[in-house]
């Protein structure tokens, strides 16, 4: 009998199989449960010789990797101490105490210690606004208002200087709030810009098309690092004397332009996948160019390009860590900076794992969300 394609659960279940041994079946139902497990593993793990070899190989790999990892990360780890000597003594264990001591610096950078509730609230507001925006039935005009409100609130919290809050210049912002600001503002601003560029690239007006093609090809041709350098070093050269634009803003603009160029190509791919008949049908119904684009073409184009778009956002989220080269302290930089405290210097693995975990949580969420959205807008051939 043909087997169903494996679902992810099935695959995970298979990898966990070696652990099944210690899960002793309860005595009464023992026999039947054992029979079920036996039956299941015969079907899924040992159905053929290659399958059996793979099962054994996977079990061996898991054994070899998971065991030392558990030993290091959990069993031998030091969880709580203010004295780094304790950590050094536990040679074969992780030093999570480093994170316990430094997490506030890693998360909030040089933000004044007593005021760090402010970036915390700002992050909470950001995440709450993101969560609300994730629900498709909330995609209404008020969402824009909500975001404007959240942006203003975050600005007030981060900068302060009003309502009795101490002023904190944005050179002292760092860590997670900085990463989130760069990423979320980057996503929110680059997306419409990318759509405009993609439409412009297909425009009938030669001037518009030339500008869009020129911009996209230029920006795609240079690495993000050089865009950031240009934004931070070259751009001020063109400004009149005595006129400065904030460093954070320059980096933000650089990231937006860079992401928009790539996104524009993802969106253009989606636009090209919409059959010509759609445009003709809209024309025949008398829809104007903008209505046709907004109501008929773009919804379909964006739907097909969801994976490519989210891919771009995920990659951009991680690329924000490059702002360190122009002296901004994002999450990865603060993690690195935390290591410069001499007693804690050896614990870089823990520091990077901690930063990686935070990046991973956000990126994993984006990827799952994109799958959800794809399913949500699936209207294809589901005839039963």
């Amino acid at each position: 009998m043909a087997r169903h394609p494996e679902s992810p659960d099935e695959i995970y279940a298979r990898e966990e199989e070696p652990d099944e041994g210690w899960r002793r079946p309860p005595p009464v139902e023992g026999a039947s449960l054992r029979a079920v497990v036996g039956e299941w593993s015969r079907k899924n793990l040992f159905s053929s010789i290659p399958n059996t070899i793979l099962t054994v190989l996977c079990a061996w790999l898991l054994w070899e990797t998971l065991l030392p990892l558990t030993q290091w990360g959990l069993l031998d780890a030091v969880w709580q101490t203010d004295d780094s000597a304790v950590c050094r003594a536990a040679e074969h264990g992780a030093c999570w105490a480093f994170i316990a001591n430094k997490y506030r610096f890693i998360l909030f950078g040089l933000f004044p210690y007593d005021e760090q509730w402010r970036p915390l609230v700002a992050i909470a507001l950001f995440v709450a606004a993101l969560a609300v925006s994730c629900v498709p039935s909330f995609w209404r005009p008020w969402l824009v208002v909500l975001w404007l409100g959240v942006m203003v609130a975050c600005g007030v919290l981060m900068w302060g200087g009003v309502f009795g809050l101490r002023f904190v210049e944005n050179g002292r912002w760092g860590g997670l709030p900085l990463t989130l600001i760069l990423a979320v503002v980057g996503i929110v601003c680059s997306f419409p810009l990318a759509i405009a560029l993609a439409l412009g690239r297909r425009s009938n007006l030669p001037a518009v098309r030339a500008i869009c093609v020129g911009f996209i090809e230029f920006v795609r041709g240079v690495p993000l690092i050089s865009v950031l350098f240009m934004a931070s070093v070259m751009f001020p050269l063109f400004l009149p004397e005595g006129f400065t634009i904030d460093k954070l803003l320059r980096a933000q603009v650089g990231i937006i332009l860079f992401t928009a160029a790539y996104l524009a190509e993802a969106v253009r791919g989606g636009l090209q996948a919409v059959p010509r008949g759609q445009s003709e049908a809209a024309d025949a119904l008398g829809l104007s160019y903008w209505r046709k684009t907004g109501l008929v073409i773009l919804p379909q184009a964006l739907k097909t390009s969801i994976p490519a778009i989210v891919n771009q956002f995920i990659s951009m989220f991680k690329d924000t860590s490059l702002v360190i080269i122009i002296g901004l302290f994002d999450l990865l930089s603060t993690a690195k900076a935390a290591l410069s405290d001499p007693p804690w210097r050896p614990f870089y693995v823990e520091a990077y794992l901690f930063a990686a975990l935070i990046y991973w949580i956000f990126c994993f969420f984006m990827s799952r969300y994109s799958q959800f959205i794809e399913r949500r807008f699936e209207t294809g051939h589901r005839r039963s």
Partner: protein
Amino acid sequence: MPATLNRTPDAQVAITLDGVHKWYGAFHVLNDINLTVHAGERIVVCGPSGSGKSTMIRCINALEQHQQGHIVVDGVELTNDVRTVDRIRRNVGMVFQQFNLFPHLTVLDNLTLAPVWVQKRPKAEAVQTAMKYLERVNIPEQAGKYPGQLSGGQQQRVAIARALCMKPQIMLFDEPTSALDPEMIKEVLDVMIELAEGGMTMICVTHEMGFARTVANQMVFMDGGAIVEKAPPETFFTAPKSDRTQQFLSQILTH
């Protein structure tokens, strides 16, 4: 109702094509097309593949631009001006071979999109009209579904209803049944026959000769970008003047 089928068309002219030419590069797609359609007339256009049938009817609602000659629809001459194009498209509905429904919208939203956004009708009224036409094409129960969940015949009937919701004076059909399985052709043709009985001005590209016999009051045969023969169905089918028409008919009728 069938009595209206044989009604002589009133004098009012709905569409005039006068010396229309079109080229794709050096290729002469439309060669001196002259055609007058009166209000309430049903024209059936046939001819071999590549003869320019689609191109001709797509010129009428400006999906293609002609390069010479005049096209006048309901008294408005078609020019490059967006406003005349808009006015004409408002009066002319079109049904495509591939249905071209909007797959991301439900059937009902497909039907109300243009009335709401182009004609600025209130949503409730647009929904009411949409349901009326869905009943007319016998699928009111499908209103909430997406096009991808319907059969080809159902999709084409939705496409007809979508065009009708704009209350057009004229309907253009470009091979509306050629993408359908045989058992679905009838349900679409029935809807079109009913439409013809209601007095709609229609230009229909089709090779369904049975349908043409019942409905057409003028047959047009095209070949090589030109209109070769124009005749009422009785003479067209029994005594075609041109050899090419004869040849074409013998081919198509023996199949």
